[in-house]
């Protein structure tokens, strides 16, 4: 960044800093795991409630929001044996340490921008997560997540011997499904279940003091990852490239988010979005969400035909999220 800026100080520069974090394997120096010792002993059910409460306090979700129940396919924390709880708590401590270590590295990026004197006029888009929290570690987590990839479910018997060095290079760890469900709060489900927001949503912070007047504000307009490129181009005052090296470009799927910077209540411009993975599919349109969960990542049960999937319908602008049964099937079909 410094070299780029020194050579061409009048031109903006673009950095795409892509990290492995917080995708598995969860690797981090032990001192970061130690910082979270005991912080997750209460388990994933309690953690989800705590996160939900904090989100309300921060105003990230409305005060009247109600939390959905844990699906029966995810075990309760109370059902875990003391041995399972011990190793599972360590898994979440490791994940948290991993996230904190990552955040510190982002901090170094920020410090460098400050030293260069350009931080205030930098459009900084910070997204940290893994497509929604990942439930790919199995019901008890995995000391080596490759076992899950090979269809082998890890149990406490396999995991517990690695308790003390969990997260170091001799492990390739992932956490238990319950933690992913807690990490996806306030949404339902987890990564891969693209029908629900738990499978598609990561928190995003946008920071640009020179351009954004507000501080610590929230925006609720629907946005999607395809909105980032248009945002960057608009910020840099660059036109959409109609042709690159002679190849005509198809238009962006997303829209710039800059319209929301000055106007918290602006009418949203990204009004339709389709999601799909492994038959889990959904569509957002003008404040409505229609979705159907077809499969569950960790359950290898025979799947129904796609046209037998049960659809759910939600609105984001009415104060009800329960499935409506009378006039909504018409909307769903449309």
């Amino acid at each position, binding site marked *: 960044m410094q070299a780029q800026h020194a050579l061409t100080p009048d031109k903006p520069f673009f950095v795409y800093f892509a990290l492995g974090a917080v*995708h598995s394997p969860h690797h981090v120096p032990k001192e970061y795991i130690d910082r979270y010792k005991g912080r997750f002993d209460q388990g994933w059910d309690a953690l989800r409630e705590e996160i939900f409460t904090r989100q309300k306090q921060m105003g990230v979700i409305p005060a009247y929001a109600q939390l959905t129940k844990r699906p029966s396919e995810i075990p309760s924390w109370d059902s875990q044996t003391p041995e399972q709880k011990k190793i599972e708590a360590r898994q979440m401590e490791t994940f948290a340490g991993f996230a904190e270590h990552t955040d510190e590295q982002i901090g170094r990026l920020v410090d460098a921008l400050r030293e260069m004197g350009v931080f205030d006029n930098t459009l900084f888009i910070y997204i940290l997560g893994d*497509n929604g929290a990942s439930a*790919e570690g199995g019901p008890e987590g995995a*000391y*080596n997540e*490759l*076992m899950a*990839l*090979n*269809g*082998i479910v890890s149990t406490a018997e*396999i995991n517990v011997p690695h308790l003390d060095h969990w997260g170091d*290079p*001799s*492990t*390739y760890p992932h956490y238990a499904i319950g933690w992913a469900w807690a990490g996806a709060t306030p949404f339902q489900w987890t990564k*891969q279940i693209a029908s629900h927001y738990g499978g598609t949503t990561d928190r995003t912070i946008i920071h640009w003091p020179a351009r954004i007047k507000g501080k610590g504000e929230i925006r609720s307009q629907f946005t999607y990852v395809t909105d980032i490129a248009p945002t960057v181009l608009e910020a840099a005052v660059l036109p959409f490239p109609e042709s690159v090296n002679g190849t005509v470009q198809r238009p962006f799927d997303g829209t710039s988010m800059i319209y929301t910077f000055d106007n918290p209540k602006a009418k949203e411009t990204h009004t339709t979005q389709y999601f799909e*993975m*492994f038959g889990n599919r959904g569509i957002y349109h003008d404040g409505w969400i229609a979705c159907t969960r077809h499969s569950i990542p960790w359950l290898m049960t025979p799947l129904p035909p796609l046209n037998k999937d049960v659809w759910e319908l939600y609105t984001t602008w009415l104060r009800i999220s329960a499935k409506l049964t009378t006039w909504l099937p018409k909307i769903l079909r449309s």
Partner: protein
Amino acid sequence: MKEGKAHHEYNYFGVERTNIGGQTALSPGKHEIKYEFIIDAPKPGSGGKCALYVDGQQVATGHIPKTQPFAFSADEGADVGFDNETMVSNDYKPGENKFTGKIIKVTIETKPSNLSAADKKAVEDAQEMAAVIED
């Protein structure tokens, strides 16, 4: 090569390891080292017989109880002459395991797997899953 002798380690997810090795250090000069794995049953995950040959002579043999059925990794490649990223064996360290001799040629010979149609599909599904998960 372990202390100058041909050596093989099979690492099953870091949970089980099978080691076989020759008894005599190789003399300086050109040699042909062959590793052979003969699967017990045409099924993913099946164990099998393993053997090492130096210049046509069998120097070690053993049995691997089970093998990783579908994948060793979703993002790590196979190395020749050194072992990068995650280690197969704990006998050597990352960055300190480069082969000090010269490798002239590596030949990999496979035989038909004779997997059932269901098993073939299971392999394809696992490969697709691996590709998706590493996104």
